[in-house]
């Protein structure tokens, strides 16, 4: 925790617990929210689409951060859990005509159930073995979902769904979906930030730091390891539900191993164990993705032997792999740590140390 600005001290517990401590922080926070929610009025539509996808990704990555960063349970299958949420939402909306404010939470629960099932082995195995469990989930997911009766999940063709409706208003344009998705993102982030300082969050961190010691301290390992997977994939499931309403078409191929790897990369870039890190990492890597998409055509003239779609794909892979490796070797604490250092040195300036 970085030091507080000069002259801020707490007189009671509610002050001590508050996230936002100074008037300047309040101003910055409200200004940020205003900019985010006034976005559709001045962002061009392409930018709006990028922000929407980033918002959905942030939810999934924050969930992954809770499983991996906070609890230390390795999960290579976040994308499959997101897919489970998307398919649950889609089938409830398409086959049972559930409104979106019921089907998206139901998608979250669908994801959480699948995550909890694949989290059960975490009690017996850890490390590499646990990574393999979630990898198996990721590989089995598309195989199973496409072989279900096509009335359920659309079979190999995927499933389309009608736009979300509330009252007489249809959430079809990017603008209206932007408000829905940003609203859900803010709520999910609020819960995630508060989870880290709650009793449950502390128990999860105890499991991460040393699970045997945590058990001796009275943390029930089965409950909390399964809970870590359930919460993480609840986030994934809700992200999947939003994804289903944004694209209005879900296919098993959208939720592949590579997206799971991207999500893990976002955690590493942002900083393992920090919710803020998950946000920073997602924004950083999403920006990088967009940059590659723009720079791709120029790159194609320099290396002509790898053309077209493959070129874009290879550029993405090299950047993602390179970024993961470089951050692991040179800055394992990620961008969140850099940000805290920056804030710290700003506050104690002009003194070099405190």
């Amino acid at each position, binding site marked *: 925790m970085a030091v507080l600005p000069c002259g801020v001290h707490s007189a009671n517990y509610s002050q001590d617990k508050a996230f936002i401590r100074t008037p300047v922080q309040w101003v910055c926070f409200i200004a940020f929210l205003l900019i985010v929610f006034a976005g559709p009025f001045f962002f061009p539509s392409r930018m709006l689409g990028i922000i929407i996808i980033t918002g959905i990704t942030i939810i999934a990555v924050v969930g992954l951060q809770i499983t991996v960063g906070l609890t230390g349970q390795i999960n290579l299958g976040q994308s499959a859990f997101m897919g489970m949420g998307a398919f649950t939402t889609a089938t409830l909306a398409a086959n049972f005509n559930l409104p979106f404010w019921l089907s998206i939470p139901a998608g979250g629960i669908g994801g959480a159930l699948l995550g909890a099932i694949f989290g059960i*082995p975490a009690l*017996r*195995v850890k490390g590499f073995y646990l990574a*393999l469990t979630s990898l198996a989930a990721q590989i*089995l997911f598309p*195989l*199973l979902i496409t072989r279900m009766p096509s009335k359920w999940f659309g079979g190999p063709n995927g499933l389309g769904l009608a736009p979300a409706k509330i009252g007489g208003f249809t959430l079809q344009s990017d603008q209206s979906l932007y408000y829905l998705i940003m609203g859900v993102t803010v709520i999910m982030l609020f819960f995630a930030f508060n989870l880290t300082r709650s009793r449950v969050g502390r128990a999860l961190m105890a499991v991460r730091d040393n699970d045997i010691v945590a058990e001796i301290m009275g943390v029930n390992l089965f409950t909390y390891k399964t809970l870590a997977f359930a919460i993480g994939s609840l986030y994934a499931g809700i992200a999947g539900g939003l994804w289903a309403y944004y694209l209005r078409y879900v296919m098993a191929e959208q939720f592949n191993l590579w997206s799971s790897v991207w999500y893990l990369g976002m955690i590493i870039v942002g900083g393992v164990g920090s919710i803020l890190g998950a946000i920073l990492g997602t924004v950083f890597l999403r920006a990088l993705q967009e940059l590659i998409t723009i720079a791709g055509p120029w790159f194609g003239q320099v290396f002509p032997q790898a053309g077209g779609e493959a070129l874009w794909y*290879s550029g993405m892979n090299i950047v993602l792999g390179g970024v993961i490796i470089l951050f692991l*070797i040179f800055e*394992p604490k990620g961008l969140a740590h850099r940000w805290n250092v920056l804030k710290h040195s700003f506050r104690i300036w002009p003194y070099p140390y405190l």
Partner: protein
Amino acid sequence: MIDFLQYLLNGILIGLLYAIIALAFIVIYRAGRILNLAQGEVVVFGGFVVWTFIAGASFPLWIALPLSLIAVVVLGFMVEKGFFRPMIGQSIFANIMITVGLMVLMRGLMIVFWGASARPFPVIFSLKPIIFGPFSFTRSIFIGAIISLAVFIVMNWIFEKTRWGLGLSTVAENHVVAQSMGISVKRSIGIAWALGFIVSTLAAITFLSGQSINFLVSEIGLRALPVVLLGGLESIWGAPLAGILIGVGEALAAAYLDKYTMGAASEAFPFIIMLVILLIRPQGIFGWKIIERV
């Protein structure tokens, strides 16, 4: 009945090919305690190196094969030194993620170096079918199975009988103990990676001979994971046994169950086995059970 035996035979031969890729996992894990998720990419990379020497530079086979083995040994040492040496003593998560990063990076680099389209891999063993009574199978798979058995015998000898190999096993047991017995942990892990790259390249030669090669072939690495786990991550002889079990199971699932499941049964079978093993006996059939002390 004849059909059933034919499926069984094909399953065994395919299983031995899975087993040689599994061996590459095991060789690296035995020393570094790193499960290299990039194994499939390493196999394909080795395959591309062989392709470059034979088809690209058109060297004769007896020059090309030693040259490519030397090239991959150098590559193995480089990968270890560049990516895995800084990770000694880091968390398991960091170690897993660096292999995942390597997997993604190698995919990208392979497309840049060799392009994305499939290329024919040179025919190293002839593709003529061997007909034995009522059974028939391609010669390359048969020779591949024999080569993998030979590789197993050699690797087993290295790990059980030579000074080097025993040192590697000590490093696998405990880095600190190995260091205090005078075994260089860093050098051992380097050797393990070089051995792993050699085995991967041999796997590529046997598996790809006469087939086509592109970066997507690296899926084979993930398909070999259940074999590694069933046999046990530390056991060299576990791999062929597990390979045969999974190969036969997959072949039978493909023959009898695939028509009811649109081809999913044979693809899902190894991974369902993997989940079952992880739940029942995580160390596999012959793996070491590590007892945790506080």
